[in-house]
């Protein structure tokens, strides 16, 4: 038994390093998407103290809109632009109708409001696009669908091109976001607002503008994850669950840490895959990916309540 837990998995890893790389690659692909979604959560949380329950349904809604528009005969690339437009309108409407009237209410009320947004989007999505499963317009978007074969250590590593595309696009989006947050006036304003609301107001940063902006960013993230995940699993309301994978990422990374979201996402993506293949399947009959991340996060929280990378609270007067 001990041998199965502590020795055999590592022996397997060393015996077939190419397979290990395959597992890590699969983990990386999901991990970077988790990271992206967690980043959307963090930005909204930092600038409005709202835990955005609707992030998952935004992924579904964005993917449905994209596919739905294409079904109406709109060219694929125009569909992307139009969907971005829809996500922007959604951000404006949410700010106007939900956030602005509720400003200053307790956090839990705002959280409930995002549950309301979720239910509303589920209903709206079903009315407009119907509830049946759809296929992501992967090829129409010009995403390559072949595979790349590599031969590390004399073994075999298969990388699907659409996964490679997803990783590259997601990585570019993360890097782009980091540059935006750190180097631009609006990005600085978002971070400033996260640090100190009153001071942000005092220098003339408008809450409304920033809120629309972060919800729009969350919308862009939703679209990208929707495309990437939809290309693997099809477009349905089940896509929502990918956003809930971001919860353990946030528990690990801390709700307020941008770095934490990125590293936490990648870690969870890879660890849950490793665990599934080397421990879950041989010892527990598989299907551990649904719960592994949560257990991992809980264990970490026992030792570090602020999460692994929770931004240190600077106490100094």
């Amino acid at each position, binding site marked *: 038994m001990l041998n199965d837990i502590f020795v055999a998995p590592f022996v397997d890893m060393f015996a077939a390093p190419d397979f290990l790389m395959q597992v890590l690659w699969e983990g990386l692909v999901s991990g970077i998407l988790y990271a992206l979604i967690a980043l959307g959560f963090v930005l909204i949380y930092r600038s409005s103290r709202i835990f955005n329950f609707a992030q998952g349904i935004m992924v579904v809604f964005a993917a449905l809109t994209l596919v739905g528009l294409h079904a109406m005969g709109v060219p694929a690339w125009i569909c992307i632009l139009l969907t971005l437009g829809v996500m922007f309108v959604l951000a404006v409407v949410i700010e106007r109708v939900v956030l602005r009237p509720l400003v200053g209410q307790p956090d839990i009320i705002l959280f409930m409001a995002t549950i309301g947004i979720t239910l509303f989007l589920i209903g709206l999505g079903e009315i407009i696009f119907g509830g049946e499963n759809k296929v992501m317009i992967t090829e129409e978007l010009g995403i390559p669908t072949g595979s790349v074969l590599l031969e590390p250590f004399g073994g075999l590593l298969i990388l699907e091109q659409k996964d490679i595309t997803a990783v590259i696009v997601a990585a570019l989006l993360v890097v782009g976001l980091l540059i935006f947050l750190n180097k631009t006036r609006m990005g600085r304003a978002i971070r*400033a607002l996260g640090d100190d609301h009153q001071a942000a107001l*005092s*220098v*003339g*940063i408008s809450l409304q503008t920033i809120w629309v902006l972060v919800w729009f960013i969350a919308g862009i993230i939703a679209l990208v994850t929707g495309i990437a995940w939809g290309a693997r699993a099809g477009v349905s309301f089940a896509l929502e669950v990918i956003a809930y994978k971001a919860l353990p990422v946030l528990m690990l990374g801390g709700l307020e840490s941008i770095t934490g979201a990125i590293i936490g996402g990648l870690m969870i993506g890879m660890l849950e895959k490793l665990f599934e293949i080397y421990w879950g399947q041989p010892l527990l009959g598989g299907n551990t990916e649904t719960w592994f991340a949560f257990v991992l996060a809980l264990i970490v929280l026992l030792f570090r309540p602020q999460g692994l990378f929770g931004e240190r609270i*600077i106490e100094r*007067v």
Partner: protein
Amino acid sequence: MPCPGGGACRRREIWNSCKRSKPMPDAENTQETLLEVNNIEVIYNHVILVLKGVSLSVPKGGITALLGGNGAGKTTTLKAISNLLHSERGEVTKGSIIYRGESVQDRDPAELVRKGVIQVMEGRHCFQHLTVEENLMTGAYTRRDGRAAVERDLEMVYDYFPRLKERRKSQAGYTSGGEQQMCAIGRALMSRPETILLDEPSMGLAPQLVEQIFGIVKSVNENEGVSFLLAEQNTNVALRFAHYGYILESGRVVMDGPAAELRENPDVKEFYLGMSDEGRKSFRDVRSYRRRKRWLA
């Protein structure tokens, strides 16, 4: 002189009639009034009446001090002007606030910043996880006059506060109290303000540092022509650097006058500067002061 401040002016005349010895400083006589607060009342949470009719005026190019003990209503007055009360569930229920002849009540704080009025909040409120330089740059958030102009002003701020230049890459949360105060003032300067509402800059700082910061405020006032409305508990320092002062108690202006006169006023000396002609203060003095105060109000 016309009487913009209503009640405050009447009191001012009473005080001036017995005290006026020399003409008011130039800032008072020759220069226009930027900000006029007329008899405002502020209520928090719909029930707590905190300001009970405060009037004051801030002349262009002057340093006007708003003095008074803890809880007198200084911060509330400044926030009423800068429109930061809303997020504290406070509300101006009476009176008017006029900036350059225009009512500025119920505006967005951002609009006021664009008009040239910016507040430096009590307790500094730097953005802790942003670097000092990033903090300064957020001050330029509302500006639309281009990168070059902003860069020039950044250099100007560094000229006034060389210490900030040394610390520009440090996270603000890890800098000292004095550096954070400088950072907060510098940040306000980056908005190219006409008037800065400066709340308790001396709080928690060593006397030497307080002196240094007030010195810089004075030179900003003289060289850049920025007007200040300065809320302070530290009456002694504030009256040395200000041109004019208002004394606030329990939400009312109980006294006002040119700083030089306030410094010489026996009541101010006794109750705010901690010195007295008769030596120790007795309870009888306290009572008579209270009586006089009630009469004045």
